[in-house]
């Protein structure tokens, strides 16, 4: 019997649109999406322009010389009110930043890397189910909380340990920043370590290597580019960290290597300057844009280097 098939619903309703209109609207949509992507580039350009434009008001002032800014070892923008007596030498702030960041990295790098090794090589599922969420919570805690923690617990702890520590000191801020960067190092390094194929690990086991041999002589070297870029990203994050140092590192710009003293950092200075009653438009006020430019150049360089290392030296396994 010759039974006719019913016409499918989709064809009965005949709601097809011409391909031409779809292609035209496609072009409009792509243009819109591309504008958004261009917007992110424009954002970078705006940041650079803003920093150059505002810090030009600082560097072009007759009271500021570039040599003094780059090599001077006294920074008195907040202490001295007479503009011709103020000294603008970036080194106290830069050394403060480096002290805090150095201490932070002493904590974040080894702890983050070892935790990453543990997570990717040793951890059982049960431990992982505790450790991973804890690290995620730690990563989600606002930075101002770490600053409070440094003042509340770390600094008194250090003073109990040795009374020579100031109430506000580089070490307590550094430890807090280190804890803050720990989850970042750990998650990025773990991503890199778990991207190393299992076959490499199995090769080491077949040669009689222990897990430690595997981790230290094969897995970490194979993932080195990812590990280093994680470390650099954490470094640049620590350089730019603001609220912790504003609370815990003190307000005195000191040029020293002593981690027990107060140490105002570049970001700490920016916050202090905005808190002070100096008017928008004075040379001292504009000095914060000079500091911000220096900070931006350093962090941008670090991030760029981290990205390039990750891209160029990444070992790709099939």
């Amino acid at each position, binding site marked *: 019997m010759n039974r006719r098939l019913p016409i499918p619903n989709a064809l009965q309703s005949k709601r097809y649109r011409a391909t031409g209109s779809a292609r035209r609207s496609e072009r409009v949509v*792509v243009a819109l999406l*591309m504008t*958004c992507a261009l917007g992110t580039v424009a954002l970078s350009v705006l940041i650079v322009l*803003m920093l150059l434009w505002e810090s030009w008001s600082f560097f072009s002032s007759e009271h500021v010389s570039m040599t003094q800014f780059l090599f001077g070892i006294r920074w008195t923008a907040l202490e001295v009110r007479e503009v011709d007596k103020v000294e603008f030498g970036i080194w106290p702030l830069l050394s403060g930043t480096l002290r805090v960041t150095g201490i932070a990295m002493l904590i974040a790098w080894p702890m983050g890397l070892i935790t990453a090794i543990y997570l990717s090589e040793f951890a059982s599922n049960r431990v992982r189910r505790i450790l991973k969420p804890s690290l995620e919570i730690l990563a989600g805690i606002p930075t101002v909380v770490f600053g409070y923690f440094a003042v509340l617990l770390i600094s008194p702890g250090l003073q109990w340990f040795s009374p020579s520590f100031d109430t506000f000191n580089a070490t307590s801020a550094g430890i807090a920043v280190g804890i803050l960067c720990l989850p970042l190092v750990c998650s990025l390094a773990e991503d890199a370590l778990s991207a190393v194929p299992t076959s490499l690990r199995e090769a080491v086991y077949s040669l009689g290597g222990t897990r430690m041999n595997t981790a230290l002589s094969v897995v970490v070297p194979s993932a080195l580019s990812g590990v280093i870029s994680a470390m650099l990203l954490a470094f640049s994050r620590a350089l730019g960290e*603001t609220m912790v140092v504003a609370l815990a590192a003190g307000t005195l710009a000191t040029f020293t290597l002593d981690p027990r003293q107060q140490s105002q950092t570049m970001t700490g200075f920016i916050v202090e300057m905005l808190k002070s009653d100096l008017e*928008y438009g004075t040379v001292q006020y504009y000095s*914060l844009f000079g500091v911000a430019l220096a*900070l931006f150049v350093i962090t941008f360089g670090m*991030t760029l280097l981290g990205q390039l290392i990750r891209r160029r030296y990444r070992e790709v396994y099939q």
Partner: protein
Amino acid sequence: MSEIPKALQDFKPTEASARTELQKRRDRWFRFLCLAVGCSSVAILFLLLVSIAYQGTSSLNSNFLSASHDPENPAQAGMYPSIVGSVILCVLCAITSLPIGVAAAIYLEEFQPRNRWLKRFHGLVQLNIANLAGVPSVVYGLLGLTLFVYMFQLFGKLEQNQVSGVDFWGVQRYYQFVAVDDLSVIMVPLGESREPTLKIQTPRPAFDTLLVPIDLHVWDPATPRPSDPEVLRRTVRKGDVGAAVEIYSWYYFRLPFGPSLLAAALTLSLVILPIVVIASQEALRAVPSSLREASAGMGATRWQTTQQVTLPAALPGVMTGAILAMGRAIGEAAPVFVVLGGNIAKRSGPEHLMDSCVTMPILIFAWADNPVEQYRQLAAAAIIVLVALLLVMNSFAIYLRGRT
């Protein structure tokens, strides 16, 4: 017969087993070290939460959640304005940054070009977003200060506490009078006048405080006083002087923005834009390409595929990323501090877009920086509220992620 390999010729079983034992022991120690370090990060988290809970729980009560900052009496101080401020700020921030961020991610993931130059552009955008994520948030704050608060001083210099600029819409100016019954307030519209005060002589169009039009009655003190209380309510004494006041609608808009809610929200949305883009890209990348190919095989264009197949499939992931980014925005203090300043004396949440605003991290920062011990305890209590809010948001995000 082949030679015995050298390694086997001088093979000493006892030495070899001793070496193996040593390796095994080292392995155990290493494993223990790893475990100890891993556990110590959990311990740090625990210590942090416990010490803050210990400091803060005593001041955490309903008054704390409903009152505002009190500069004299820490026992009466609360954080209500900052909760409202943070939530409104976060919503505004989501409205501005999510569409742009997701669109940029879609462009980067779904419309990968074949053209050589466009490919370069693609790589540049990608590298640029990674770099933007590494820019310190305080620098974004300075960008917001220059771009939104002062607008490169195109509209004249903005002094502290004094607004100069161009009003666009959402503001109404009135002269305020006290009615003869000494209870009601009568508002007389400013009209074209720019005078700071008005001496009333003749009846004018007028409104009560709820901006309902009323029939203004001007009473000459030389004539007898009206006795009807209903009339008294809309009567002013002839020759009274009223001062100009401004009433803002929520959509009040002016340029430059000044240290306002809108400026802070836009600045924060710049801070989280790279995070939104990266998270959305990851979510889109996780959609299997077979879905896209199936859609393309049905004759769909790339945008039709994205709109109807890829985006719905990636939506839980995009939402997760969005919520995590919002959590970041709520906790971010530095850019908001740069834009709004550290003033926490506001008694209510922001009332219009150009209103000043207090957020939770700013309040915590100001209290933690206060030398008075009681304010520091309040800071701990505020941290408990903030962290609890973040935990709720993040667990919702993790729940969404689990559903994919």
